[in-house]
Each structure stands twice: as C-alpha cells, then as structure tokens.
C-alpha cells in the first residue's frame, strides 16, 4: 500500500471490525482508494467517546455517527472502533466489542412500551404514560397492602417484600444510583444486580 497514514488513521483502519480484519487476514487488503473513502466518511462524522458495554476491561471506544447538526437531523451511528489513546485497550477491541455496531442496530432492540395482558399471547403497544401509570398503580396497591411497618415482635422494619427489583450491571452509575434511591425508599429489600449471580 502506498498511502501515508497517521498513527490514528492506522488504528481506524486496523480496528475497523472483525469482518474487515478477517478479510484483511485472507489477503484482501484495502486498496488506497477504498481507504481514502473510509477516511473521508470518518472525517465528516461526529466522534463520541464511550466505553465498551460488554465485559469489565472497560475498553475505550470511539463511536462515529452522521448528522449535520441541524435541529431536525438525528445522529445515526455507523461505525465503532477502539480508542487508540486508551491506556488499557490502546485501540483494540475483541470479537465481542468488534460487533458493537450490530448490537446498537440489533433487530432485537425494543422501540416502544408494550404490555402483555394476563392470559394472552401477544404484545400490545401502549404509551409511556399508560405504561407508567399502570405500573405505578400496581406498585402502590401492592405496597399499601403488604408493606410491613412492624414485625410480630414489635420491631420497626418498614420494608416491602412482595415486589422485587433486579438492577442492571450494564447501566451507568447514575442510573444505578437513582434506581437504588427510588427502590430503597419504597422499602424494597428483594433487590439485587448481576453481582449476586
């Protein structure tokens, strides 16, 4: 290859993903023209610093999205690669992380609140307001009926054991913190995250 690439551009090419790196291994090295097209795309993309969502190594990633910044144009993620400045990952991603883009755009992503009514066999789309109103109603009814202020021995316990909560070890500290703050102050004790398993 005769193109001049900077270190950063080199990483951008090298970390392009499992699919392209496998192609490279099989001898399909990108042609200069192809490389320059990729470079052009990234140049005009918005670059966002993020962290891989899978294991706990915490590899730095750069997410590239398109959208010209106009108010009615939304960003669309089209490329994810390792962050070459990251002291642990130094631009690398493993086969899990190399597929992050397909996780973001997975066909399995949920887009709208839904309910499955008792005894039925399908989902029904509902609004956020309806979903949260119905959930809050369930919670309050259960809490008011089953909240324990005192035990049979007269000990103050102020807990609610008939609704439980599993929190997400893939979510941020900020989501975790507010989840804890809300859940615990409702009196819930059947409360765990993936660290339990």
């Amino acid at each position, binding site marked *: 290859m005769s193109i001049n690439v900077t270190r950063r551009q080199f990483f951008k090419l090298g970390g392009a993903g499992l699919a392209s790196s496998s192609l490279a291994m099989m001898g399909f090295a990108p042609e200069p023209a192809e490389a320059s097209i990729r470079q052009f795309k990234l140049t005009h993309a918005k670059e966002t610093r993020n962290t891989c969502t899978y294991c706990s190594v915490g590899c730095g990633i750069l997410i590239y999205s398109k959208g010209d910044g106009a108010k009615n144009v939304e960003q669309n993620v089209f490329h994810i690669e390792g962050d070459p400045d990251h002291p*642990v990952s130094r631009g690398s991603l493993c*086969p899990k992380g190399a597929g992050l883009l397909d996780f973001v755009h997975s066909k399995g992503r949920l887009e709208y609140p839904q309910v499955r009514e008792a005894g039925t066999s399908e989902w029904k789309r509902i609004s956020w307001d309806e979903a949260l109103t119905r959930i809050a109603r369930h919670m309050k009814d259960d809490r008011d009926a089953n909240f324990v202020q005192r035990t049979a021995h007269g000990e103050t316990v102020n807990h609610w054991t008939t609704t439980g909560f599993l929190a997400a070890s893939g979510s941020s500290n900020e989501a975790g913190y507010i989840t804890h703050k809300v859940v615990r102050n409702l009196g819930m004790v059947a409360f765990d995250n993936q660290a339990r398993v």
Partner: protein
Amino acid sequence: MTNHWVDIRNANLILSMGGNSAEAHPVGFRWVTEAIEHNKAELITIDPRFTRTGAVAQDKAFIRTGTDIAFLGGLISYLIETDQIQHEYVLNYTDAALIVREGYGFEDGLFSGYDESTRSYDKQSWMYEMGDDGFVRRDETLQDPRCVYQLLREHYARYTPAMVSSITGIAVENIQRIWKKIAAMAVPDKTMTILYALGWTQHSIGSQIIRTAAMVQLLLGNMGMPGGGVNALRGHSNIQGLTDLGLLSQLLPGYMTLANAKEQDYRAYIDKRTKQPTVEGQVSYWKNYEKFHVSLMKAWYGDAANEANNWCFDWLPKLERPLYDILDTFERMSKGELNGYFCQGFNPLASFPNRAKVTKALSSLKYLVVMDPLNTETSEFWKNYGEYNDVDSSRIDTEVFRLPTCCFAEDEGSIVNSARWLQWHWSAAPPPGDARPDTRIMGELFLKLKQLYQEEGGVFPDPILNLTWDYRIPADPKADELAREFNGRALEDLTDEQGNVTRRAGEQLAGFAELTADGRTAAGCWIFTGCWTEAGNQMANRDNSDPYGTGNTLGWAWAWPMNRRILYNRASADVQGRPWGADKAFIWWDSEQGAWVGADVPDFPTNSPPSQGQMPFIMQPEGVGHLFAGQSMVDGPFPEHYEPFESPVPQNLLHPGKEKARNNPAARIFEEDREALGTPEEFPHAATTYRLTEHFHFWTKHAELNAVVQPQQFVEIGEALADEIGIAAGDWVKVSSKRGFIKAVAVVTKRLRPMTIGDKQVHHVGIPLHWGFTGVAKKGYLVNALTPFVGDANTQTPEYKSFTVRVEKA
C-alpha cells in the same frame, strides 16, 4: 481487582484460575502476554478445560471442577512447611502473630459453633484473644500454638500432595512443580498476580476459594504490590459500579449495610459498624462509618434528616433475614409470595438456576416489568417457542410490561471497570423509536408514585414524600446531576480546627475525608467522593501519561477510592517505608517531605511516618491482612474443601464417611431444591458452564456479526466420553440433569480429558451458555435448565460451575 489491567504487566508470575481471560476478557489479557514477553513472566493456568488462556501458558494443570480450595490449601501447607513465605511481610502485615481465643476448633469437617438445625455457625469462638490493655494479644515468635500462624499450619497439614491429588485429579508431580514455581514468589522483590472470574465465585464454596487465594498472596507478600494482588475479572461492564453503589439486598452505597430487624437502636447500629482499632494505634478507617452514613441520609432526605430523628434511621428498610437474594426471592416467588417484579437490564429466565422453577415463579406474579434495550427471554417467558419455551400462554396470568431503554451508545454517564476506574461516556445518538434512558424511567415512575401518595395517602409515605428530588427536570434527572449528588457537597461552610473555612456551603467535596457526621455534608456514595469535585468531572480525565513507568496512569479517568490504582499500596514498602525491591518501587516514605510519595495515591495516611507503626491494611481494625477470618465469613475462619452439592464423587475425601461435611455445612438449600439434586449413579458427568470468545452472555446473540461467527449452540465432550457413549463430532446430544435437559451439537475434543478421582474416572462436560429463544442466532436451549438452585454460603451466588449431568445421544 485490587490492582489493575495494565499492572498485570509488572507480574513475575501469573496464576489464572477460575477464569479464562483470553476468551472472556481478551483485551485485558493482552497485559498477560505483555508480562510474558517483556517481564519474562510465566503464566500458569489451572482449569478443568484446555482453554485459550491455557494455550499460551507456560505451565498448566487440569483440575476437577469445584476443588480449588484443595489445591490452594495444599499450597498454603507447602509454603509453610518449606518455609517459603515473605517473613517480614507475614509477621508485620498479617495477623499471623495474633492469638485466637480458646474454644476455636475444627473437627470432622466442622468448625466450632455449628448448629445443624439452622445450618449456621455461632462465631463467638472465632475471635482473637484480647489482652488486659483492650488490644489483641500477639506472639512475635509465631510459636504459640494458638497464634494464627500455627492454627493455619495445623489446619492445612491435612492437605498433603497425595490428598490434593486424589481430590483435584491433578497428578502429584504436576502439583508439586506448580507449587514450587509459586513459592519462588515469596522473595520480597518478586510478585505473582492471581486472575480469577466466575469460575471461582459460582460455587457453594466460592467466597472461600477467593479467600484462600488472598491468604496465599499474604503469605507470599504479594498484596499491595505492583504485579501482585487478587484480581477479580468481573463479568459485566458496570457490575463493579452497581456493587459499589450497593444495589444488593443487604447493602447501602459504599459497602454500608442495612440494619437487621434486631437493630432497633440507631446508636447501637452505628457503633457496631464503627470499627475501632483492636491493635493500638492502627487506622481502622471504618471508625468513620457514621460520617459516611449521615452524609448518605442528608443526600437522600435533606433537611428532613436531623440528629433529633436519628437522621431518619427508621425510614430505611430493615432486614428480617440475612439476605433477600435472588434464590430466596425466586423461592418465595415460586410459592406465590411475590406480586410484582422488575427486571432492569437483567434476564433471569436465562440467568438464574433451574429454569423450570424460574418459569413457575414468574408465572405466579401479578405483574412483571422489564426495562431493557433488547427483547429478552424473560420478557417473553409466557410465550410459546416450541421446544425452547414450551409454555401455555393462556394459563399464565402475569401482566407483563416491557419498557425500551437506551443502550450504551445513547446514554451518558460513568461505568466502573474491573480496576475500579470510573470512566465517563457520552451519548452518540438518540435511541431507536421511543426508547428512554433508565434515569428518566425511574424518575417518572417515582414522580407518579409520589403523586399517588400525595393524592390518596397510603402506608408509610414519609420517605417517598421527603426524598430529595431537586433535579432541573424532575422527571428526567441528568447524569451530571446524579454524579454530583453521589460525589457529595458541603451543606454548610466546613472549617478546620482553627476555625478557617475549608469548604464553602454548596461546593463539591474533594474527598471523603471532608465528610462529617453532624449533617453538614451530603454524599450519596462516599467511596465515589472525589469523582466530581470543584475542579469538575474527574471521570472524564484523559491524560494517559505514566510518569513513573509503572503503567499507572493517574490522569486517566478516576478510580475509587481517592484515585488509588493499587489497593493497600503501603504494603509495597517494607516496615521502614522502603520499596521491597528496585523493580517493585511503587510508593515509599520520603523523610524530607515527611510524606508517602511515588507512582500512586498512597492508600494510607499521607503523613504517618513508618516509626508510628501504622500498618497497611487500613480498613481492618488490626491494620493487617487476615489469614484468620474471625467474623467476615459465615462458613469458617479458614477455608475448607467441601464437595459441590452435585458431585460425581460421593464423599469428601478429607472427611470420609462424614455426611455433614460432604458439602458446605453452612450453605443454604431449600428442601425442594435438595430433592432436585441428582446422584452420581444417575448423573455421572461433571458439568461446568462458561462463555465463548465471540459472545457476551445472552446479549450478542442479538448482534448479527457475533451470531454469524458463533451461530449454533454446542457442548464440549472429551474423546474418551464420546467413545464411551457412542458420540461422533457433530452428533446431537441430550444433556440432562435432575432438573431439566438441553439438546445441542456435540463438539468432541481433546480439550477435555477424563480424570481419575479415587477409584473412578470422571468426565467433564463443557456447556457454553449463550443461546436462547430470542435474537438473530439460531435458537437454542437455555442452559440454566440444568443448573442447581443452591448458592455460596456467604453470597448465595448460584453453583453454576459445578453440577452433574448425563450426556446421551439425542
């Protein structure tokens, strides 16, 4: 991790056991190869399987699943009997010299104080003996028969190489060769690092396996050292953060604990947790417990929390049982004792043991709320997917709500990696459709509940109505606001002893040393204090310079506590404060500056000179590392090998004929679940579950690239077992336990070999866990159809890594 990913490169020896980082943490594993190539380190793997980690190891052994304590206990005995320990470290930095009370004992596989009816121990006898001065008695010669060192020696004397070999299945010569290499790390200037993962935690003796590793590292003088430590390679991107923030049934943020029902008195609750030094002059940092606790109460309740009402102590729920863990909860749920359940980014139908029981439990709920970016199996537990989820929807009356959430790319905030680094990330794009961040969902849901309590009244509304909620947009609290809240701020001016103002009211705090117990500070998670200071968001730092060449990049992100990268790093220097070796210099005492200095933030009072005699383990009341876990474990002060609850071996070879000591005597198992355990006759094969390089849990089967490279469910069986049962590579097999079955393609491999245990051959079956009935990969069976509903005695983490099955042609 006590240390961090890049620090692995400083190791002279790497012991990978109970984990397979080359496949589960591939990029972190690069620092293992870095140590091998540039620090002349050796990698030793000990695993039931030949893994990709083992493939690049210089030495390895294959161990029967669930027998790690036998191997490590034998190692402890070997280190003591051959006198290969780091003497100065063991004498000064561990409890080896401390005297244990009369009354402590161990007989027939049981420690003193066992109550069979409750399957629990009274730990009264597991304590150090106090002298007349009110401090623990000690014997500097380590000769007193009741000092920890001698008790330790006696306890593990039974773990001879022959005994270890008969339990683990590793040949005596292999055991001794590996022990010898590990023992060479007892010299002061060499270190071994230990890397483990769920292969250690997911056992009924999981916590004790990890403790055994910590004890080995104390004897070798490897804690607090660069290239040393006990390093948990955690399984999820922010599982460390959620643990730190206390999202577990018995915890509050920052490893504080909820009161139990007996603890009705606020002062007694605080005093019990306020650990005073038990050796004269030691730091015992938990003596500040009340400062952390009151600051949390001020963060949550603001002005409503004051000294007169004990800072709203009674508003926090109290526990009527030790844990309301997931096994306890699903046991209760399966009996109809729960009405509602929330699964936020968690897929219990796939992740919890004994899938049939989990289905039954979820079916008995009135309502289930799933918050997730993906359509998880749990959210569709009621839907028939043929053989993969054979249920009758019409008979399941659970109302299920499914709320779409953002994924990482659409979310802002911080996550904590395994090395305790809080790294900030930014949102790259809006989520698909009408998906929302978890922070907003929790905010709106809370406000709806609060409104209901305001309008209708209801039971005990106090904490709901008074919860601090001063977010700019109340229904949508932002990440920066929440991060600032858990960091903490001054509520009033703070002053020093001379009355000078050190912090103005309203300012962000710089560290937890500023917290007070009188209500002048608020902080939602004391160990995170320092992450968002007056200087701004420290988690967003991105200076990757390494000025000391130790791989310690203090300017990159922010690590708790106080940006320290290696915990207990005071132990990297000798008693006089000098590094143990030139290669291992990390922090040291600088007498001119009168301070500890070096490559890291000292995990120690900065100006406490060595002559003051404070010891490195500042969170312990004795100032030293514990070889003897007097009070912290429920199942014994020294780890003991017990068989998995389902084992191909009918007895504990350390305690033949002693039925009570066959399995962990303090592990809880519900009656129906005990009945659902198989016998070696019916289910002769040892099974273990694990992850593959190409997949992450049950998530990546939703990602096309990963589904392409690893599309189909399989199980691994060794050639000898395949021959025995007439299976060829590519055949379909049925793998059954007493609780259920899966069908998968057989990969017949040399990577699993039979082991001789006692008078029988034991075959292992390897069961990757990634498939299910949703996603873009080929549909598969949830492997937790097979696993037993029993957990570790301390944590209740299920025993996914050791159980028994029968493999046959499908």
